[in-house]
Every structure is written in C-alpha cells, then in structure tokens.
C-alpha cells in the first residue's frame, strides 16, 4: 500500500461517458447508409420509442438481479399481464378511445395503465412468495422454477383469455403522425419516448436522491453490509420486485398499443430481448439497461431497413460485439 495521507489529492476518476455516447455515435453512423434524412428521423424515433418500452420492461429485471442476485426468468409474464389488462380496461372505454381529443385518448389510457401496473404488482407478490423465495440463493433451481413460472403464467393467460390474438386499437387521438419538414413521426412513438424518459428520470432521481434509492444502490453492491447497518433488505427487495413488475406491466400496455394487439406469447418473445438488453447494459445497472435498450432498438430498426435478413439476429450480434469489448456489459456493477 502506498503512503496514504489525508492531504493527498485523489486521482480524478473520469466518468465513463463512452457507453452513453454509443447510441449517438450509432445514429450518426447510420445516417450516411440510410441516405435520406427523413427516413433516418423516422427510423431513429421508431428505435428510440421501442428502446424506451424495452427499458420500462427490463429495468425491474436488472434491479432485482443486482439487489438480490435473483434473475427472474418469469419477468416477461408481467408484460403479458399488463397487455391483457390494457385490453380489458380499454374495451369498455371505447367512447373515450375513439374520441378525437388528445385529452380523452390519454384519459382512457390512464386507468388502463393504473390497472395494469397494480395487477402486475399484486401478482408479483404471489410470484415471489410461491416461486422465488423457496429457492432463494439456489441459482439452478431459481432458473428452472422461474422459467416454469413463465410457462405456467403464459398458459393461464391463454386459458383465461383464449389463445387467439386480441386486437387493441390505439386511441384515435394518438393515431397518425406529426410532420417535421419531410419526416413523419408517429404520435404514439413520441408519447412512448416521453414516457420512457420520464421513467428513466424518475428512477435515477429515486436512486440518487432518496434514502430508499441509496439503500438499493448500496444493496446492489453489498447486501450483507446493508443488513449489518440495520436495514431489512428482504422488504426492500419485495418493494423493488413489485415496482419492477409494475413497470413490466406498464411496458406491456405500451407494447400492446404499439403492436395494436395482445397475445401471451410476448412474454417469451420479450424475455429474450430483455435478457440481451440487460446483458449489454451490465447486469444490475439501470443506466446500462437504458443505454442497452436504446442500442438494441436502434440497431434493430436500422438493420431492418438496411439489411432486413440481418435484423433477425442483429440483437445477438450486437450483444456479441459489446461483450467482446466489455465482457461484463457496458456498465459493470462492482463486486459481482
């Protein structure tokens, strides 16, 4: 150990900006290939909105893993639950959803979002009790049991709502595009971007400005020490698990409206996407999850336009490239 005296200046640790700049660099690099700037704007906004939705879904997954070393393979189930709740709530609100005024479209979405988040959070308590707690600390069983939970949840949704696709039309007021110059940007995608940014900002504020947030970050780093300071981490964990599931439910509503359809198969489909995103971001990192989600979605949109066949595997390729550069993801969380 070198001499340590309190007067010595600290080595300035430079903040890690490179990963945060990646999406910007990617977007700029794609521009010359795409050629037309209006297409580029449309694709970029599409990518950003998709990224925000995936971020909303995956943020809880990565936090729960960081905090408790629990990787919930059944997280996707709450996305599907959210989507079905949206269909359930919006069906009787047809009067509002079909009105032209923006406020009535949003007013219809509000109860849908509240119900979706509430039901997801409530079900997550049961999920945690029945499936996660009994195998806590046993990775192998945890993977198997939560994966089983995903299958069962998906099948139960089929049994309850039927195996067919359910159409979920977007409220009239949110249809159509806003034109900037010669670029058309869908209104709903803009809304998704705004919602995603609000979620990200809220999460970051909570994590950096509140005591609960500090506890979560401290717990991600060293669970034991948080307990030794006298805090019950189990309660914190259940709180985070519920909040994460509620966000997955919200993501489910957003995704269902974006696709304008509801089907339980999104649970499995998006599980894979979420995994790729949180691996890219660094397991446990909310910021990493945010950047990772945007990267994956931008790449998917650009590749879908430039080389459609490549888009089938673009997420995997992106993951491989990122991991070759940083084997623990963009923002590796310390100590794990």
């Amino acid at each position, binding site marked *: *150990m070198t001499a340590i005296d309190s007067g010595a200046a*600290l080595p300035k640790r430079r903040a890690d900006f490179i990963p945060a700049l990646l999406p910007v660099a990617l977007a700029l690099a794609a521009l010359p290939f795409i050629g037309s700037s209006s297409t580029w704007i449309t694709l970029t906004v599409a990518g950003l909105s998709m990224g925000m939705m995936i971020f909303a879904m995956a943020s809880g997954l990565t936090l729960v893993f960081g905090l408790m070393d629990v990787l919930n393979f059944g997280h996707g189930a709450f996305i599907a639950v959210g989507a079905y709740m949206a269909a359930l709530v919006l069906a009787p609100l047809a009067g509002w959803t079909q009105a032209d005024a923006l406020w009535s479209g949003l007013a219809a979405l509000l109860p849908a979002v509240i119900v979706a988040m509430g039901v997801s959070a409530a079900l997550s308590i049961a999920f945690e009790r029945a499936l996660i707690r009994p195998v806590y600390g046993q990775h192998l069983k945890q993977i198997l049991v939560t994966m089983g939970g995903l299958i069962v949840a998906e099948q139960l949704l089929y049994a309850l709502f039927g195996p067919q696709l359910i159409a979920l039309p977007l409220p009239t007021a949110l249809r159509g595009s806003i034109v900037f110059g010669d670029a058309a940007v869908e209104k709903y995608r803009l809304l998704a971007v705004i919602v995603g940014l609000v979620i990200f900002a809220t999460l970051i504020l909570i994590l950096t400005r509140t005591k609960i947030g500090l506890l979560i970050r401290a717990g991600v780093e060293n669970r034991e020490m948080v*307990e030794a*300071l006298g805090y019950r981490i189990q309660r914190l964990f259940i709180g985070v698990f519920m909040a994460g599931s509620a966000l997955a439910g919200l993501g489910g509503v957003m995704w269902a409206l974006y696709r304008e359809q509801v089907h339980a198969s999104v649970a499995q489909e998006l599980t894979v996407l979420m995994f790729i995103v949180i691996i890219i971001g660094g397991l446990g990192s909310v910021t990493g999850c945010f950047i990772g989600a945007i990267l994956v979605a931008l790449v998917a949109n650009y590749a879908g336009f430039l080389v459609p066949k490549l888009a089938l595997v673009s997420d995997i390729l992106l993951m491989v490239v990122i991991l070759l550069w940083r084997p623990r993801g963009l923002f590796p969380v310390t100590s794990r």
Partner: protein
Amino acid sequence: MSPLLTLTGVHTHIGRYHILQGVDFTVPEGETTMLLGRNGAGKTTTLRTIMGLWRASAGSIRLAERAIEKDATPDISRAGLAYVPETMAVFSDLTVRENLVLAARDAALDDTRLAWIFGFFPALKKFWLSRAGTLSGGQKQMLSIARAIVEPRRLLLIDEPTKGLAPAIVGALVECLMEIKRGGTTVLLVEQNFRVAQAVGDRVCVMDNGRIVHAGAMAEFAGDEGLQQKLLGLSLDTHQ
C-alpha cells in the same frame, strides 16, 4: 464490570466445515476487548456469528440480558451493534456523505458528531462528496469506522482495521480507537498487529482452532512473552 456481550458454547458451521467449536468469552461493558489468534483461528467467523451473518449452530449469544443468536442481522444491528468488516465494505458507488447518511439509521446526520469524526479523520471531510470507490485503502477504512460511530452504539465489532495500512494511518486509527474508548463505548477488536492490540486493549482473548484458549487482562498478557509465544507463535521482538 458486568459483561455486555456473552458467548457461551458457540458453534458455527460453514458448509461442511466446523469453524467455531464451542466459543466462550465475555466482553465487559465500557472496555476494549482484543480478540487475537493465528490466521484461520476463527476470529472473523466469531464476529460474523455475533452479527448474525453466519448462523450459530449451537450455543448462546447474549447482549446484556437479551439473547440475540436467533435474531436476524438487522435486528442485531438495531439492538446496538455496529460492525466494521475486514473488507471495510464501504459502498463504493455512493459518496462519503451517502455512506454516512445510510449509517445514521435513526436520525439525520448530526453536525457535532460529524465534527468529532472529522477531528481524527480529516480526509473524510475533504472528500465528503467523492465516491467512496475513489478513496485510498486507508481512507476507506476511516469511512468504514466512521460509519460505525456516526451514531452512538453500544458495542463495536471491528475486524483488523490496520491490515495493509501504512504506519502513519495506523497511528491515526489508534488515536481514533483510544478516543472511542474514552467515550465509554464497548469495543470487540480483532487485530493482528500486536503493538496496536497492546495500545488499545484492556482485555485479551486468544483463539485457536475455533476455541478460546486464553482470556485475561491485556497488561498481564503483554508482560508474558512466553505465553504470547505459545499462543500466537510470536513475540514482540519477532513481530513487526
């Protein structure tokens, strides 16, 4: 003096290893008790078992009149114990301030108390808003101890605070430990550096193979080189 902490016949298993094999000792209130012993004797395991981080498989641990061996770690902590682990375990992603905000569990940070802490650890004031991960090893150790004393606690468990630190820092730590002691706080301290142990310890317990093999006054133990040689395999001449 009445004992604040009493361990009776404590056994701890980690996996299939039987680490503590019947530990008995007491920590008198208001004094500093040193826990000494060779590497692997079970000192860290003893502290972790007291904190509830390992479960005692048998035996009892009492804090004054209260049995704590079955309690969960947060409850043990709230009963008035503070723990400074060997790894320091500062939250490196949090700032110095945030580390102490979390440690001040019962109320907001108290300025007088902080000023007292800054008195022996000025570095913490200087780097108040820096991330703890950017601190040097010695500064992390200071932060870890500061966390334990940011609010008054009944008993401090401190695991090898001087390990790997430069002599200048060791001096500051000893100052701090003496000051804590003068404040009347009870301390159970694991220490490899016998000079430090001798300087701050009132009593001494020596462990070997998961048991206490000697307990007595520090002054007496420090005067008996033969005993030190026998129990610790060292003497003041050869060590340091």
